[in-house]
């Protein structure tokens, strides 16, 4: 292939990724975005200008070697692309799907100034999927150090930390409270956004290469306290990546009626327990004919889109799913792509609307929801305009199911008898942002347990930084306590 000039590269349009048609996909749980073919991937890779100072890398929390992997890809050296990718990112098939690239690497791409950025995320996914299928670049383990690390929680933060520590030659044991590793990647994010085969494929492959031991069904805090891990169980260091798993419910009348679920419960039933396949799988999940999802984050979008699919699978033709959000479209915290997908599939958005009471029937089942209209006032401490109720604007919504997706906080179980581990008033662990060091000796923490509910990639970045610091500590280079 002849080398293109930059002018020619700028002429190539951003390649679109094939997706399932909205009307088809809203009736199945299969993946929405189908991924690039090799041809599409290489065509897209041709668009990269190979900047001498790549700004995209600065935008990536784990500093993926973006120009390098894209160059290898367009030269037809896919194995090389995989190797370049895995220098920094151990879980590319996952990141390629769930990272908000539009606000991280792609927003920094020089092409974005005048047109559309290189589709870095889609290329990452292509490379990740290729590696999952071909296993061309098994992770290698450095000379064993004989040091043992307990990684608590097997979500994005814990996984990243465990894999980096494994590569550095440490013996890693992961403790997971559920029966399947992956944390929010398996219980929260639905199959149609992140197939569980991809999650398990990445985790199994990495764990096998690095000899990472996986202790499932282990609720740390109950089964072992942190001190027991450090002393009795002989771990040299502990990393806490237990996430933010505790749901919050609104403090309104009727919140405990049947049919009011946390998004956590609904999504766990659907995703982890495969409730959408009931009765083939044992865990039931109900879906209302008229569902209201409270909140407008990614979890709310996932809940709404799962509800639509369940309604379709169960032939509830007249089904409706609403997102009820107290602010306006501008403040929606979910990724633009998720909102767009939800709209395409038929989710109805009720903005500037806030629930004030849930009604129940004689069986304590939800049979309606009273809401009030809101208007935006002055910006609050979050910088967003504060929603203010409009007096006398109350109205009733005809709903039979309410899913509450209003953010989560860290699960306190892991802190049982954890003396010396400082936490904030929000229940998050106090940890150094750069190193992940907690206030308790030999304990590090990262991800949602430190930041409160945030993104997969920021958790991965925290896991990575902590792994580097734990490594320095285990090698005796530092002793911060």
């Amino acid at each position, binding site marked *: 292939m002849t080398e293109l000039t930059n002018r020619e590269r700028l002429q190539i349009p951003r390649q679109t990724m094939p997706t399932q048609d909205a009307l088809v996909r809203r009736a199945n749980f299969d993946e929405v975005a189908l991924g690039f073919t090799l041809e599409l991937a290489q065509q897209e890779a041709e668009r990269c200008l190979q900047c001498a100072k790549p700004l995209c890398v600065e935008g990536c929390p784990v500093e993926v070697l973006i120009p390098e992997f894209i160059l290898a890809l367009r030269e037809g050296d896919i194995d090389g692309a995989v190797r370049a990718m895995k220098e920094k990112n151990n879980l590319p098939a996952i990141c390629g799907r769930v990272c908000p690239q539009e606000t991280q690497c792609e927003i920094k791409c020089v092409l974005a100034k005048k047109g559309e950025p290189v589709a870095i995320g889609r290329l990452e996914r292509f490379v990740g999927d290729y590696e999952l299928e071909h296993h061309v670049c098994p992770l290698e383990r450095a000379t064993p150090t004989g040091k043992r690390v307990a990684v608590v929680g097997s979500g994005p933060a814990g996984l990243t930390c465990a894999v980096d520590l494994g590569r550095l030659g440490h013996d890693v044991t992961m403790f997971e*409270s559920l029966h399947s590793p992956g944390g929010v990647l398996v219980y929260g994010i639905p199959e149609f956004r992140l197939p569980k085969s991809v999650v398990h494929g990445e985790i199994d492959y990495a764990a096998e290469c690095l000899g990472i031991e996986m202790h499932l069904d282990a609720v740390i805090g109950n089964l072992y306290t942190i001190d027991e891990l450090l002393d009795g169980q002989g771990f040299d260091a502990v990393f806490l990546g237990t996430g933010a798993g505790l*749901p919050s419910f609104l403090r309104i009348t009727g919140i405990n009626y049947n049919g009011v679920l946390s998004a956590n419960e609904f999504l766990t039933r659907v995703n982890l327990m495969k409730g959408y396949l009931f*009765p083939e799988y044992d865990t039931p999940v109900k879906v209302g004919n008229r569902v209201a999802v409270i909140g407008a984050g990614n979890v709310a979008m996932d809940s709404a889109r799962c509800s639509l699919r369940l309604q379709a699978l169960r032939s509830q033709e007249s089904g409706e799913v609403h997102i009820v959000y107290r602010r306006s479209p501008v403040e929606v915290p979910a990724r633009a792509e998720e909102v767009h997908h939800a709209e395409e599939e038929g989710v109805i958005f009720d903005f500037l609307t806030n629930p004030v009471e849930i009604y129940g029937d004689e069986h304590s089942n939800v049979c309606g929801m009273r809401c009030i209209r809101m208007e935006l006032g002055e910006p609050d401490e979050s910088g967003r305009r504060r929603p203010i109720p409009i007096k006398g604007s109350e109205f009733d919504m005809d709903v039979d199911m309410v899913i509450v997706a209003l953010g989560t906080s860290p699960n306190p179980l892991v802190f049982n008898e954890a003396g010396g581990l400082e936490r904030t008033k929000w229940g998050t662990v106090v940890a150094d942002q750069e190193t992940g060091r907690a206030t308790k000796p030999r304990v590090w923490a990262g991800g949602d347990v430190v930041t409160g509910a945030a993104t997969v990639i920021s958790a991965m970045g925290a896991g990575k930084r902590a792994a580097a610091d734990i490594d320095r500590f285990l090698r005796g280079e530092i002793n911060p306590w």
Partner: protein
Amino acid sequence: MYKILHKEILSEVNKLMVIAAPEVARKTRAGQFVIVRVDERGERIPLTVADYDQEAGTITLIFQEVGKTTMHMGTLEPGDELATFTGPLGHPTEIKNYGTVVCVGGGVGIAPLYPITRALKEAGNTVISIIGARTRELLFWEDKMRSVSDELIVCTDDGSYGRKALVTEPLKELLEQRDGEIARAWVIGPAIMMKFCAATTEPFKVPTIVSLNTIMIDGTGMCGGCRVQLTDGAKFVCVDGPEFDAHQVDWNLLLARQRFYLEEEKQAVEQWQHRCQLEVD
């Protein structure tokens, strides 16, 4: 995987199993529960432990076959394995010397009541126990309960064994006869029984503790499906309980919430029985 070491058939529907789970047994105390999943497609269900043996590294469970999961579990034999066995979960019972206490167990609730009764007895309490079941066949562990009680009253709804009465009757008599003497009561059994026991002890102002068994998934505070309405707000049975002040519980809401998946449970049972029938044929 968690191996079943021993199985006893207590009645047609009540089964006892001893599970090898040394790590869990090491930490388990009276009043705590575990989450069990039979196989890869299984549902996660909470079961309060009936006994634990740290030295042997085992947990004893007693369950009544009421749904698909417990029916399936009932077909397992020693040597078979459970896919998931997580615990110990929830808070242990607050054991101390209260003076004279009453322990009331109904049906399969006798199982989790036993280790609590034993611990209360060991702590120096005078323990009066009442156990009851619908009929004689469903009663079990009378001897074990007797061995840890100063006094034991046994009753059946139909009078086929012991006194013909609901457990609330001897409970009420006891409260009347020894008014002011009873420091605390524990009640474990079907929700409806706990509700009426709570109503029985309330006029006597005897603090009454119930162990709730609600619908839950993870058992660690993540789903909130187990939430129960108390007079001072909603609590999660899995992490705030499973024991609560019986006089604070909104029993009607609790009973309604237990019935939420009734339709699906029925469907699952029908399908299970159909599958079993096919295997027999």
